[in-house]
């Protein structure tokens, strides 16, 4: 089975410093977008079950970090395809999806299965998997929390707001997974060292002849809310009394 696991290298949103109403985004380290690690894990599990090859297609939105690429590859991907350049920065899922699809095509990869995370830690627009499917003219199932491989098809459970949907998708297909689907493995140091030698290609998105609607980012602000940050420590009974006081003050209890 030819599997592509899509992932995005993003600024780690939990480590972005804030200055007034500014987010100092480029001072944060980068990481593999959280749920994309579930996508890589699922791709590797399928390969372990039925054989085949996993390509890690990595969209590099900020600075590149070799250690992070190696760690992601070490989860069990066979090679990396990195897509980078100004075209895959900022917010334009159309452009990113097109770059990814064109890079996959240019590498001559004809996937049986493309697995993505439901949404990225930076933008969470949840658009990319759906767009990749359209650009590749493949069927798609989004927000998949469980899946089972059958003969030439997948049976998946889609996790929706008020319930779930079980659907069958013929292969080749595109799937987006939610974080509930698996527990991503943590590779060992040895696995990480070995991963450095795996095959990789780098594609510059400006070479792909992209054609997309423009989206202009006109402002970005930190979203903060000041809190009192009072600490209550020590005796539990005293702490409970303080909570009751606050609840009273707010009119929650008489």
């Amino acid at each position: 089975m030819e599997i592509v696991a899509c992932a995005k290298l993003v600024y780690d949103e939990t480590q972005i410093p804030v200055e007034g109403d500014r987010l100092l985004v480029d001072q944060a380290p980068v990481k593999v977008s959280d749920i994309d690690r579930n996508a890589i894990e699922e791709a590797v599990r399928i390969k372990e079950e039925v054989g085949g090859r996993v390509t890690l297609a990595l969209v590099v939105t900020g600075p590149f970090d070799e250690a992070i690429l190696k760690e992601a590859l070490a989860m069990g991907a066979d090679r990396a395809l990195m897509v980078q350049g100004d075209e895959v920065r900022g917010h334009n899922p159309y452009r990113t999806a097109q770059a990814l699809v064109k890079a996959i095509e240019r590498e001559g990869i004809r996937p049986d299965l493309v697995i993505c995370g439901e949404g990225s830690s930076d933008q969470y627009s949840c658009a990319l998997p759906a767009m990749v499917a359209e650009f590749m003219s493949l069927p798609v199932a989004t927000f998949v929390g469980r899946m089972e491989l059958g003969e030439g098809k997948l049976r998946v459970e889609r996790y929706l707001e008020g319930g779930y949907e079980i659907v069958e998708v013929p292969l080749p297909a595109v799937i987006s997974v939610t974080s509930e689907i698996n527990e991503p493995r943590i590779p060992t140091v040895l696995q990480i060292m070995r991963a450095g030698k795996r095959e990789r290609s780098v594609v510059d998105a400006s070479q792909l002849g992209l054609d997309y609607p423009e989206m202009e980012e006109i402002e970005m602000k930190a979203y903060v809310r000041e809190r009192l940050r009072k600490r209550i420590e020590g005796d539990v009974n005293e702490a409970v009394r303080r909570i009751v006081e606050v609840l009273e003050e707010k009119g929650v209890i008489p």
Partner: protein
Amino acid sequence: MRILLASDPVHLPSLVSAARSLSPSNLEAVSTARAEVPVDRLLIADVRVNDCWVDALTPRDFDLLLLPPTRDFKEVGARLAARRGLPYLSEALELELDGKVEASRMVFSGRGVERIRTSLPAVATLNLDGFEPVEGSPDSVEELKVDCTPRVEVIERREREAEVDLSKADVIVSVGRGLKRKEDLEMIRELASLLGAEVACTRPISADLKWLPEERHVGMTGVRVKPKVYLALGISGQIQHVVGFRDADTVIAVNIDPDAPISEVSDYFVVADLYEVVPRLIEEIRKRKRS
């Protein structure tokens, strides 16, 4: 400005309300069932699967297509935009039109808000918080024939009626992984009932453990709440959760870990074991109610 809406009948009245605030010259809606909403034309389409939603909307003419921000419609909107070569805005807040379209979006798990500007026609899923549903009669109602051969086959679909709308709750008692067993929800429910509060949770409690229904999970992928008081019990305070209660007036957190990140985003941070706090709190409030 021709605005087209595509929605399930449940979200349609709020979506119409949001669309009307943009003063469209023509407002049309496609829905899977009849709804009493004030639009120029209501098209009823028998679509059961996302594939057919995309096919149904592909030939339609609009300046702006608005969809509810559900998981299904996020797929439909993105696919349609890709197919038609149009810009797509996901979960837009504060939409503005001036020949182009501008919208805010939450980014970096809610740590920031960005403002995006793009051309029309465009497709957007729209955050519907704060839009009161409107009622009225459509000027005309027609059936929309959809020619579609779905590529995925739906085997089963189960939808529950949501039991609560947390975004309207005045007081919320919310639990996280600090809760050890499902049975312990009993004491949480008891506390909530004494406070006239709704019970909420973090995503692992609903999605992984399935102890509470999805609509009770607060955060980026769940509900955004704005109660007078948000009492967070055994919740670490990861940003994806925090963004959901940011508009609460007062936040009280109880956590056994003195360094839990929630200490930074609460008004009162109580370093304690929730299993010691909750029973005492119940007792204390009962005492007061009796006297």
